[in-house]
């Protein structure tokens, strides 16, 4: 009942979408690429894609900075 998000263990929540997960782990940066088990989730699908249990998630924050 857990996830690996950027190499760190995070609890799995049933029926949680990518958008909700990002909010929960406080990843608020707008330029992120999300991969679930190495498969890219298109940004437009963040509100619908459900995060499966035991998955490995990469949330790649694109470099910003002034």
């Amino acid at each position: 009942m857990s996830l690996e998000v950027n190499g760190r263990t995070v609890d799995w929540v049933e029926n949680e979408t990518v958008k909700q997960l990002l909010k929960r782990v406080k990843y608020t940066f707008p330029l992120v690429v999300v991969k679930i088990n190495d498969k890219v989730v298109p940004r437009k699908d963040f509100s619908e894609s459900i995060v499966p249990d035991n998955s490995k998630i990469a949330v790649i924050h694109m470099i910003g900075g002034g």
Partner: protein
Amino acid sequence: MTEGQVPVEEYKTGNTEHKWDLKKIKNAHKILAEYSYKKREIQKGYANHTLYVNLSTGEIKEKKVTEEMKKKFTGGRGFGLKLLWDSIKPTTHWNSEENELIITTGPLCGVTQYPGSGKSLCLTISPSTDIICDSNVGGYFGPYLKFAGFDALEIQGKAKEDVIIVVDGEKGKITIETAPKEETDSHLLAEQLTYMYASEDTDKSRQKISVVSAGKGAEHSYWGCLNFSFFDIRRKVPRLKQAGRGGLGTVLRDKKIKAIVAKVEEFDGVANNPADPKILTRIGTKLHKEIRDLDRHQCNMRTVGTVHLVEIMDEYDLLPTENYRFGSFPKASKIYSPKFYELFTQVIPDGCWHGCTMACAKAVDAFTVMTGPYKEQKVTVDGPEYETCGCGSNMSMWDPLWILEFNFYCDTYGLDTISTGTAIAFYMEMYEYGILNKERCNGLELCFGNADATLELMHRIAKGDKGEFIQVAGKGIRRVKDWLIKKGWGDSQLINDCGMESKGLEYSEYVTKESLAMQGGYGLTLKGPQHDEAWLIFMDMVNNAIPTFEDKAEALHYFPMWRTWFGLNGLCKLPWNDVEPANNAETDDPSKVPEHVQNYVEYQNAVTGWNVDKEELILQSERCYNWQRAMNVWLGRGRRKDDWIPYRSMGPVTELEYNSRKERYDKQLMEQLGLSEGEVEKMNTEEKIKLLYDYRQDRYQKLADAVYYRRGWTPNGVPTPQKMKQLGMDNPKMIKMLQQKINEDEKAGLNVWGGRYNKGKKPPSNDHKYWEKW
């Protein structure tokens, strides 16, 4: 016209209007030297000449740009390095007669088809660091300098009285003129000179003038920035962009230059004379569309500029508050971007050069100044950008209007907001500990959040106040650290650990405690802790994508090469990765934005007619990056000890800091240092801080080891002759000097790794002189 945009004719800023007798002011000018030159077309991005002005002798001449110079140094910052190498000595200091102030352009500078193509690069020996400082800046001066016929302007010597240098691209004439009656502060001076030198009394004419200046603050501190103007045709005011870091404005005023004026004739989208305008238009149009369609869903730079980062940094615990003690603060939402959105005058487009769709150069019109010599006047404030807001939070100022006031005075006084804000935040922390107090601060109660005292300090610096503290405060953190220690007012380790400077330059506004790679991004740099070499915090701390020392070293090789490349070409970094193509996520390496990298390859080829690939772009940077480091070595610096950073940027200095993130640090003691929960529980905070202190300093040394090795340097950080030769930078004088320095280091026992390697851990190489086999 875009929705919400105001027609040019209808918009009024509401600023205070000035009535000057410009004729009288101009009549007071005396021409000290003049030089006429033959006007010529730019060829494939290059004017093929640089301009040399000596203020001591009055000599003005042109120098030819050779093909060899282009091959080795590309342009922009690279040309600046070459010109400095030819003109200064290893003993040159910032205020030496022979020190130069150089403004360069780059082959892509001045293009209007591709967003972000109007940057100038400025170089000098810095008063803060006594090594080369480079700083990039928008505004129209760089493109105009090139359109007037020069790839770079090189100023040596010092004038005896206040002068202006005029580069008149309309007449083909350069003059050095006395300027006794003009104002000094930039918002006034830029306006006076724009109106004075415009050929006609029209906005279009005024748009063909750009002024470089620095105000009174630059005269009396080491934080002097250069203000580059551009006449905003909608607002009808000259606006100011800053080459902020390293005291370039201080050098300008030390040379008694009040301003530099560039003036051009007509120019158009192909003034740069590109080899292949069609390709340029194709890639430019594609990026314009991408920015227009996607920016609002990504960083929203077109609406709020870089201040969108305030809330992000706060949420990721990276927003410096109270001199970098903390990375977030309950009051921070008071300075989030929506607050500035309400204040920005939304008169898009707000680009700092023509054709920049990103248009992040936001401004507030009719801001009522609250203090100081311009109190109650209404002015346009350029910005604030993220860094300036970060200075606010670092000093614990949470009022957006106060941040605007700070921004306005920094700009017009010619003070770098970053150095000013970071340094004052340090003074405030020292005040909190009683190391400074009201008496020692010449009557200022410089505690966190004291808005009035902070502005008063700035006004007194600008006035040249002779108070002991005011004098040393304006010279920055390093000098204040030495002063406090010499006075015996506090514990030297605490003072050194809290003062956020490296190499003598103040840090920019990011908390780096949890990102080792970014500690390197600030410390293992050429000019000092500015985020324009690499910004790796997310990649390292959040994405966890570069876990090993080798991974971090690779990132600290690759990303600085990109940032350097923009400086060689006259480009802005923001359109590279602050917007991304819709399909970027599906590419092999999204963090490098492959489509934009390919754009840059095509872009440089389309302008110059070369046939380079992306590997060659990196090589262009590597040549200049290593050359600059080698020059720092030549100037007696550029070694491991010079790359050291204060502990505040590595970890918690005080118990307050540790306890504010206790769970995080306790966990690290267990996970990274192998302590048991029981052991951690038994320790007091002081003991825990001490353990982390040793561990984190050793990690930084190991990172330096890996980075020096990856960059082809010795373990003491000196570029090796072998590396320089591989890059084709085989100037015999330079190679001989490097070998000599390596031999000196060898004798002194300094060619050794800095990290502690035990329990089967290995340094990057066991071969003592690994580079000799390359």
